[in-house]
């Protein structure tokens, strides 16, 4: 397997230091099952993203898509550090973080096609998903970092009730320019709340690069202004992201208060499906796609460490394709919401959200 890893070296950048990686895995007490699960999520995220983009370009997918490609190390790495009872306040770009947290793929697909079995029953679309009573995730809202203040509230509830739970919120680099980002870090530090602040720094906020968003060299440096630990992680390595997140989550869980994690990667695609992202220099994109691919890098490591072999990879790829296809079919079969329900479910007392949704239409 070591020979294989050397072959991969050209594609994945610096040769993974196998001994250091094994030590890291042991230190983090990650089991074989954990490692394969991380690999599965990285691969699923990539596959889902590519297939959905194809469907979008074919005109078969309504609404919008927000690609997370190239940033899988961030999304999977941070979410893997949470327990089921911890809450996650995600964004439109990190659906894979919600999938790690336990979303049902069929319902995710139904959401994209505006169907009644989607998490919002057709009231919202694309990755504006949440599953508070199941996977414990906040239903995504566009105005980042709009969920940061809400994460403060969930964390406050855990602290007041003496529950060993943690809230984690994610936003992008552009959202750190917004007042709420600073308000929330400040509030969490003042009250020492069990919260982990994650910034997915993918170098561009839509078309605006880091240097126009903020004057500091590193977003993580801003943690000092709020007396909390801040760490900048290269998100091409999912284990490094996981390690930073795990440490922050456990610090919060044990009463040590909030932390800030800046995960650096590149957004390989545009802000949304319509954006060709010509503002990203081609050489830079090539460099990231060739040498800083979080999925390929982790796959090479797993092969080199013997955690999986080629046939195992093929089986995993097949499983992912099957799950996607089944999810797609499920979404097409799921009925559209009944038009007469348009005003229901605004208030809690009409029972709309208590029962099963009204099913009407033939599912298109």
């Amino acid at each position, binding site marked *: 397997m070591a020979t294989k890893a050397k072959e991969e070296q050209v594609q994945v950048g610096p040769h993974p230091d196998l001994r250091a990686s094994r030590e890291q895995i042991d230190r983090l007490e990650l089991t074989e099952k954990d490692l394969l699960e991380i690999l599965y999520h990285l691969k699923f995220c990539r596959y889902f993203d590519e297939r959905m983009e194809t469907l979008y370009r074919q005109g078969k997918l309504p609404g919008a898509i927000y690609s997370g490609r190239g940033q899988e190390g961030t999304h999977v790495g941070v979410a893997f550090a949470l327990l089921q009872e911890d809450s996650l306040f995600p964004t439109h770009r990190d659906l894979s973080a919600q999938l790690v947290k336990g979303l049902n793929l069929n319902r995710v697909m139904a959401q994209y096609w505006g169907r009644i079995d989607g998490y919002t029953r057709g009231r919202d679309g694309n990755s504006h998903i949440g599953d508070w009573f199941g996977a414990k995730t*906040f239903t995504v809202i566009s105005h980042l970092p709009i969920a940061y203040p809400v*994460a403060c*509230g969930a964390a406050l509830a855990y602290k007041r009730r003496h529950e060993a739970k943690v809230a984690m919120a994610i936003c992008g680099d552009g959202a750190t320019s917004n007042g709420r980002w600073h308000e929330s870090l400040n509030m969490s530090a003042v009250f020492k709340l069990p919260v982990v602040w994650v910034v997915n720094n993918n170098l561009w906020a839509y078309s605006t690069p880091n240097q126009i968003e903020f004057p500091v060299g590193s977003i993580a440096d801003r943690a000092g202004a709020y007396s909390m630990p801040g760490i900048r992680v290269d998100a091409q390595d999912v284990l490094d992201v996981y390690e930073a997140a795990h440490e922050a989550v456990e610090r919060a869980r044990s009463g040590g208060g909030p932390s800030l994690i800046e995960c650096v990667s590149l957004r390989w695609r545009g802000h949304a499906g319509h954006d060709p992202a010509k503002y990203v220099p081609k050489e830079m994109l090539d460099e990231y796609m060739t040498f800083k691919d979080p999925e390929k890098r982790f796959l090479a490591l797993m092969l080199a460490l013997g955690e999986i072999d080629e046939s195992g990879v093929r089986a995993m790829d097949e499983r992912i394709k099957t799950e996607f296809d089944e999810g797609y079919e499920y979404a097409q079969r799921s009925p559209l919401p009944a038009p007469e329900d348009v005003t229901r479910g605004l208030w809690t007392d009409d029972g709309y959200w208590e029962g099963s949704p009204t099913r009407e239409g033939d599912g298109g």
Partner: protein
Amino acid sequence: MVERQVAAKPEDSPTAGEKAPTEEAGAAGHGAEPRGKRTESGEATYLIAIAEALWEEMERDDRVFLLGEDIGVYGGAFKVTEGFIERFGPERVMDTPIAEETIVGTAVGAAMEGMRPVAEFQYADFMTSGFDELVTVTGKYHYRSGVPLPVVFRGPSGGGVRASNFHSNNPEPFFAHTPGLKVICPAFPTDAKGLLKAAIRDDNPVVYLEHKWIYRRIREQVPTDPDFLTPIGKADVKRDGDDVTLVAYGAMVLKALDAAQELEEAGISVEVVDLRTVWPLDTEAILASVAKTSRAAVLYESHKAFGIGAEVSAIIAEDGFDLLDAPIVRLAPPNVPVPFSPTLEDAYIPQVENIVDAITRLAKW
């Protein structure tokens, strides 16, 4: 209608700290319940009634807690929560940084986790500083997710106290226009107490606007039953009449009643409908009164164009056109900011004489 007693002081300064008659006699400010601040005859001001509602609900339910600016040790800018921190402690009477968006978001996040927060805005004007979390998160969340948000946002609204542009506004139209928020604007101590208790027990988000001009202006006998609740979304006829329906809410109800008294002496019988809740609107009560009088006027303190009365007028025109003998009249401030100088502010807010004139013309139409 309840008896009311108008305080002698013409203006109610937020910092004047005007004390209720028995405040010194009681142990106010030392963890004593607000009921101890009632008069010897047992009457409560609007402010004391609000404090009683908060206190009783905090005693009843551990999940209820308060957060806001200067509400703890200081007891709030208007002293609504004076004595609360001594009784309930800093965790349930939480002084926060000056960060309105995050105060709203924190309340919402705690509500998602099953707590029942009551967030205080020092002035309702500052709700615009928390607007996105109120409108974009709070109002839309249940419709999109089915997750209840039992949270109340309180704030002193309204003018007439010479507090000028940034401490006198009536933001209720913003929130009534936003789906998913209930909006309450009480005029009397009893309604203020019963509606706030109902709001805290409601599983939906509520914007509760208490009019600062009324805080210490009127007193009445207010129920002491800890389960006394006033239904949200129900108007109340505060004065029966036959000739003209006058719909109002908040401080304008008091002006309407004074005008109705004068008009009665001139032989015009005015029915005063107090909305109490501006959203959801009690259209049934409005139309029932118009059916009786055939003439309708709407008196409101939010700006005239696109204000609450614009919606009330539209409902009457749309669903009660056949009931009307005359065009609907709207009495409201012009669409300019709330000015400071007494001559300007009095010209801005509808006064009793303006109401009397307008209703007289309407009755003769």
